[in-house]
């Protein structure tokens, strides 16, 4: 082949997706700036301590990792899927013992300059390993044994992450895994049965938390998780037989627990159509939106308050571009491995976006889930960019030269 012939008519990378991703990254840095630079003391910090700058660093690191991954065909990468999976399982186990505790959860390794959150990378490893596992011949996928192995691959990290506890991060694994199996061609009856089982379990759990007396709860949720569910369903914390004193205490506690989601909703709603303008958001600058969460899980509230419906619709449009170009990549992938891998990445992204934005407008209970590429956080940003790098990788090597 001549070098000229190498020049395909279609581009090697999906340019539209890259443009949308860059847009999201810029928006993210801008609004992390807006959410954190609220006081003079924040501005007086050295640059490396300013979060918008750190986010730039993470983005740079993530982009470099993504580009590096794109240099290797995803088939080669898939061979490393199993070791990567087990390495991540090890990390997830280690973090349960060695991790630092923040807000009652053991999710991070404190590396000094950086808090590593292994669950973010574990999600990636699960996608890669599951894609590689599901790329076996179609006949083998019909065997129940293989189906159960796939379920096991999903449930092991699920359990470990849920143990931290980080139910939100664990939960996104389920839709991602089932969608991958569905697209890979695992018989539908298996999927529907297990989905039915999961659904029944979830409903049981919710009914249990909401209605059963405490001694009747076989599945012990952490108290804060139970409270979040109660907040979401708008139910009283106090049991029906509580004394007035207990009820008063419970009501106060409830107000505090409802505070975050209430303030997020007020932020989003008060933005109106056009928003109050960049760095003009009262909810952030006056600290009503909790300062620890405004630039991470609630970054969407900041955007929605300052840029209004226009801003939030723009963000959703950018994600839509990424998601649908991702699906196009899946459709054009050269084999089942590529297709399932792409679907895994896209579904993971969609789950994050839906749960996070949903929680900002109270469609979803509060979960500690970041908004990919917008929320501040090194692990999340790097893992998201690596995932998107994998997606581009599937696109680049779709022709199989």
């Amino acid at each position: 082949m001549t070098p000229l012939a190498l020049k395909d008519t279609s581009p090697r990378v999906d340019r539209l997706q890259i443009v949308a991703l860059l847009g999201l990254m810029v928006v993210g840095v801008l609004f992390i700036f807006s959410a954190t630079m609220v006081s003079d003391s924040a501005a007086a910090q050295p640059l490396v301590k300013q979060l918008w700058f750190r986010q730039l660093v993470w983005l740079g690191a993530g982009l470099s990792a993504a580009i590096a991954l794109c240099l290797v065909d995803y088939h080669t990468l898939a061979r490393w899927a199993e070791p990567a999976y087990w390495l991540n399982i090890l990390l997830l186990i280690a973090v349960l013992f060695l991790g630092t505790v923040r807000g009652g959860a053991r999710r991070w390794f404190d590396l000094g300059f950086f808090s590593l959150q292994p669950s973010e990378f574990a999600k990636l490893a699960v996608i890669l390993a599951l894609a590689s596992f599901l790329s076996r011949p179609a006949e083998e996928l019909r065997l129940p044994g293989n189906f159960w192995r796939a379920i096991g691959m999903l449930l092991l990290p699920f359990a470990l992450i849920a143990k931290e506890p980080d139910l939100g991060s664990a939960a996104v694994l389920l839709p991602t895994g089932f969608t991958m199996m569905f697209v890979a061609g695992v018989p539908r009856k298996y999927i529907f049965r297990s989905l039915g089982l999961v659904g029944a379990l979830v409903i049981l759990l919710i009914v249990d938390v909401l209605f059963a007396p405490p001694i009747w709860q076989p599945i012990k949720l952490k108290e804060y998780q139970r409270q979040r569910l109660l907040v979401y369903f708008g139910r009283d914390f106090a049991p029906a037989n509580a004394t007035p004193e207990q009820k008063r205490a419970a009501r106060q506690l409830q107000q505090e627990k409802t505070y975050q989601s209430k303030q997020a909703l007020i932020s989003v709603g008060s933005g109106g159509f056009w928003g109050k303008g960049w760095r003009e958001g009262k909810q952030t600058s006056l600290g009503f939106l909790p300062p620890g969460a405004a630039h991470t899980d609630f970054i969407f509230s900041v955007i929605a308050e300052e840029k209004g419906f226009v801003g939030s619709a723009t963000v959703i449009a950018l994600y839509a571009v990424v998601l649908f170009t991702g699906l196009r990549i899946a459709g054009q992938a050269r084999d089942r491995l590529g297709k399932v891998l792409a679907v895994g990445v896209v579904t993971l992204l969609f789950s994050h976006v839906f749960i996070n934005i949903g929680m900002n407008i109270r469609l979803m209970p509060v979960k500690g889930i970041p908004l990919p590429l917008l929320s501040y956080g090194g692990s999340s940003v790097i893992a998201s960019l690596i995932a998107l790098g994998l997606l581009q990788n599937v696109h680049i090597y779709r022709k199989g030269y």
Partner: protein
Amino acid sequence: MIVFDQLKKNDVQLQLLALVFCLGLAVLLIGLWWVQIVNASAHQESVETQAFRSVRIPAVRGKILDRNGVSLAENRPNYNIHLYLEELSPAFRKEYQRIRPRAVITNDLPFWKDWLGFPTVTTQYTKLSIDNLMRVQRQARYNAAASVIRRIGDVLQTPLTLDYTNFTRHYDAQRALPYTVASNISMAQMARFEERGINSLGVDLEAQPSRAYPLGSTAAHVLGYVRSDDSSAPNELAYFSYRMPDYRGVVGIEGGFDSQLRGVAGAKSVQVNSLGYRQSETIWEAAESGRNVVLTLDVRIQKAAEQSIQKFLGNNARAAIVVMHVETGDVLAMASSPTFDPNAFIRKFTPDELARWKSEELGVQKNRATREHYQAGSIFKTIVALAALEKGLNPLEEFTVDRNPNNPAKGIYNGVRPPVKDTAPPGKYDLERAIVRSSNSYFITNGLRPGVFDKVVELGARLHLGERIGLPLLQETPGNFPRAGNQRSWNPRFKANICIGQGEMDVTPMQMAVMTCALANGGKVLKPRLVDRLESQDHTGFEPPEVFPKGVVRDHLGVSKRNLDIVRHAMLAETEDVAENATGRNVRIDGLRICGKTGTAERDERRADGQFKNTVWFVSYAPFERPQWAVVVMVEDGQSGGATCAPIARDVYLALQQMSRAATNTLATTR
């Protein structure tokens, strides 16, 4: 749709997935539309209520000045030291970290942690229950604030303490407002404060106006007093998160012109952060200063009147003086004794002052010139004389007063049962002598002549006796006087009493001043004028002063000049007729001819010595030739009009004479 077209036509799974994504994003968009567009205003309101506090800013209260611009009520800056809580919040946090309970825990570490060198002994904060947490935080805030306040105390060189309950209450209820650390600090302390520049502690000096009456008790009853008030005046925003109290006038000019003096309070909005600390302020509506009230009083005359009561009768005398200009109706002085210091309502009452203020017997609260009514006694004989003259009495006709068999030196009137005693001796009387000796027999006999009593009632109506004048003092009583139309209940005894100013009639000293002016100015019944004008506080303002008209005539006596002159001469004789031992002679001054009439009215109460208590009067005007001023003196429980009241009136006339000389001198020099 582009999204689906790009997928392979037969790839059902991916198409399904695309559909799910579409639905999901649509749900989010609809949710956002619902929250951000449909319900936007409700959420914006929530931001308002949680991030803004409205604060009422009181307006600067107007001054009260005398006719020459002497200040009687004004505002003094009170320098207070304010602590801004938002500046202290880092200190609160630091103190909380310090006093937060913690426990030292010795961990039994697993071998690998031990091996990795984790410390076995750690210090951890103890987990606190909500109530305990609040308590520790309150204590931390108190400690931090108290230490700042101690340092301020060191600078001011006065020990300052912080009251725990007071501070906590302020923190809970008014966090967005500064806390007053020290109020009313002295100039020396202010200098120390400024010099040491401790503003960095989150404290600042604020001037707050406080009401002051520089002349103390002078004209206290005219001025009235104020109380601290935090209710909304009409046309103000009804709801404020915080309202700075201002003053509400209770009685006197402070009460009567309260709304004009008070002005219109403004409003500002304070933006607060999620912890309730102040972030910034915006003035919505500036306060509109109150207007100054310029009185017709002349402080010199007012003081002379008050001092003369004090000089002759002491602090506890129950007396009143009204000095009025006979042509314009301007009230130059209105004194009521015993008096009080209106400053006591701003600072605190001393126990002594409070006892006086509450004493029923002293009746300090009453303005005796307008609020109390008394029997007029002989001073009303001037009006009876006018009525009789109008009905054809010959002033020179002689009348014989009978001898009182029980008291041969005095006369008696036998026309009614029981007979009425006369203070005048028996003998022959014409009108002038009857006035000078104040003969009861003479005036009852003439008063009961056909038509005369009706004329007396008519003159009383023209003088508006039994009616309120409508002074802006909120302390006024109408008094009593018979009204035409009730003739059937008037028996001779009733009429006889009225003819000597007793019985079913009561008058205020103010009403008697109006009567005296009418006798002096040819029969014009004036509306007393107490307030000259309302003017804006800043003289640069374009707002013109609101001037109240002078010499408003409510009515005319409608009597002939001749008859008035006869009474006027009789009143002159009352002070000048030495041969007749004139009762009003004590008022005499060189160079000023004064017309007067004394009066002594018996009250129902008896003194300790068994005698009836007397209300004694002296009504007068001067100069005789061209009357200018009317002076009415009333003393409760006095000896007699001539002995008790005339000397007091004399002091007032001396002051008036001096004032008029000073005025001529100024005129002469300015020419």
